[in-house]
């Protein structure tokens, strides 16, 4: 079986993949968000409250957390609709910091078996013990993470092949032209940012339950920057792109401890170089197109 270190690394990769996919969705519709960690945070708290304080079952708590994060996405999407580019990016950053600071003062505790449970401002939120009480091992929890990730990825990949997928790409490439093709660009953007909140939310709920403890400072801007960078490295042509980014950073650089102390420098340099030579990442639209054509041809040849 897998050793503990590997299980830990894979679990981390799985959870961070949700932020990467979340940032990717926003990138697909042509905007940059530095704030997807906010949805991760909102759901970590909301799902923790549901399972640890309200006694909800785990899956219900995850879905609830994701739904609250989706609502938070809606909350961000509507006022930022009319701004784009740099201004949108800054707004997402400000939103995420607001959420983090709000969590610093958010206190909601109840007494359970003579102990106070619940978020306690900057002290954080301890004892989200569901998986220990239910006696779920780290290996089993990894399977839960991977199953939810696979389901999320499958849904996104499927949508990318539908008309909605083409619409989102149009909005990202040229919103003026998309409007002229009859697309309601505002609606597409609102829906995407909300969906991105939801996706990050799934990861946040998993994170809270695996760690049993969260505090506001975990959800700082570096988390969002990484999530964003994964899509930019891995590529924006397919939802596999951000996952490739995660695999390259955590899977190769961090886990093999290659470059050890220099990892962040290597990572930053990698992002910078890629943005210059491949602005839409390794698996960009053209690469995805060639791969798909190659696979189809091979398929037809058989």
């Amino acid at each position, binding site marked *: 079986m897998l050793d503990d270190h590997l299980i830990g690394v894979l679990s981390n990769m799985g959870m961070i993949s949700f932020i990467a996919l979340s940032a990717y969705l926003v990138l697909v519709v042509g905007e940059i968000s530095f704030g997807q960690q906010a949805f991760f945070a909102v759901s970590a708290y909301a799902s923790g409250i549901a399972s640890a304080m309200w006694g909800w079952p785990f899956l219900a708590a995850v879905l609830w957390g994701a739904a609250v994060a989706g609502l938070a996405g809606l909350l961000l999407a509507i006022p930022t609709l009319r701004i784009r580019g740099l201004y949108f990016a800054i707004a997402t950053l400000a939103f995420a910091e607001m959420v983090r600071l709000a969590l610093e003062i958010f206190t909601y505790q109840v007494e359970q078996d003579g102990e106070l449970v619940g978020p306690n401002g900057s002290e954080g939120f301890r004892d989200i013990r569901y998986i220990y009480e239910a006696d779920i091992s780290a290996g089993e929890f990894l399977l839960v993470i991977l199953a939810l990730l696979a389901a999320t990825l499958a849904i996104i990949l499927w*949508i990318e*092949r*539908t*008309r*909605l997928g*083409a*619409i989102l*790409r*149009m909005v990202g*490439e*040229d919103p*003026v*032209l*998309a*409007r*002229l*093709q*009859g*697309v*309601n*660009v505002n609606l597409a953007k609102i829906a995407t940012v909300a969906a991105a909140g939801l996706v990050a939310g799934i990861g946040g709920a998993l994170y809270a339950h695996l760690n049993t403890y969260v505090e506001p400072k975990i959800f700082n801007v570096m988390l969002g920057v990484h999530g964003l960078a994964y899509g930019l490295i891995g590529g924006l*042509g397919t939802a596999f792109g951000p996952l490739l980014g995660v695999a390259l950073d955590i899977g190769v650089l961090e886990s093999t401890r290659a470059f050890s102390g220099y990892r962040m420098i290597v990572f930053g340099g990698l992002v910078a170089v890629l943005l210059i030579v491949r602005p839409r990442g390794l698996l960009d*639209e*053209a690469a995805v*197109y060639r791969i798909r*054509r190659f696979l189809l041809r091979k398929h037809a040849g058989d």
Partner: protein
Amino acid sequence: MLELHSLSKHFGGVRAVDDLSLTVGQGEIFGLIGPNGSGKSTTVNLICGVFPTTSGAVVFEGQDITDAPSHRVVAAGIGRTFQNIRLFGDLTVWQNLWVAQNSVEERQTGWLTRWLGGQRRGRDYAGELLKFAGLADRANELARNLAFGEQRRLEMARALAARPKLLLLDEPAAGMNAEEVSQLATRIRALRDHGMTILLVEHVMELVMGVTDRIAVLNFGQKIAEGAPAEIRSDPAVRTAYLGTADA
């Protein structure tokens, strides 16, 4: 079919379109010409809701569409091309036509199939358009990989994809050779024979003179002449504006 009432657009001090009124009749091919910077593209942009008007009104089939968002304008039945080719380069030729094509059909289908329908839905109309544009064998190519002439043809097909009643063509012949221009003229006439109304913005005179029923001439945003091609050709004001001299 299309009426512009005292339409104006000012960019700072520039009066790009200045008190322009004109009427395009059903089934007509209407030419809009004028020197560089005379406000032709701006007029097209105002009709499509790309940016807001300064004053005046756009009425289409009796419906006031002044400053309506572009997707409403498309739904009302207006399609357009751009002077600088504008396509979705990262989508395939077929996908470029796919979305708009359904935006008309969407009134007849449920939202679920509308959004989440697969690639096979409604292939027929897009297929027809691709044949019309001579791109049937390029359907699965990325739009950015097309040659210049093919991109121009795809752009026309893209504008037709939402099944407009009025087509606005902004310099469709720019950069084309004589043979391509004559093919374009054939296409434009074929569209009219199918009942399409066309507003043609163009510099290439053989095309404008050859296909239009009526022409309006702009200079510094104002209409300086309107009439049949023969009248316009002999109008001294037009010659002055267009060629700088009356005797050219």
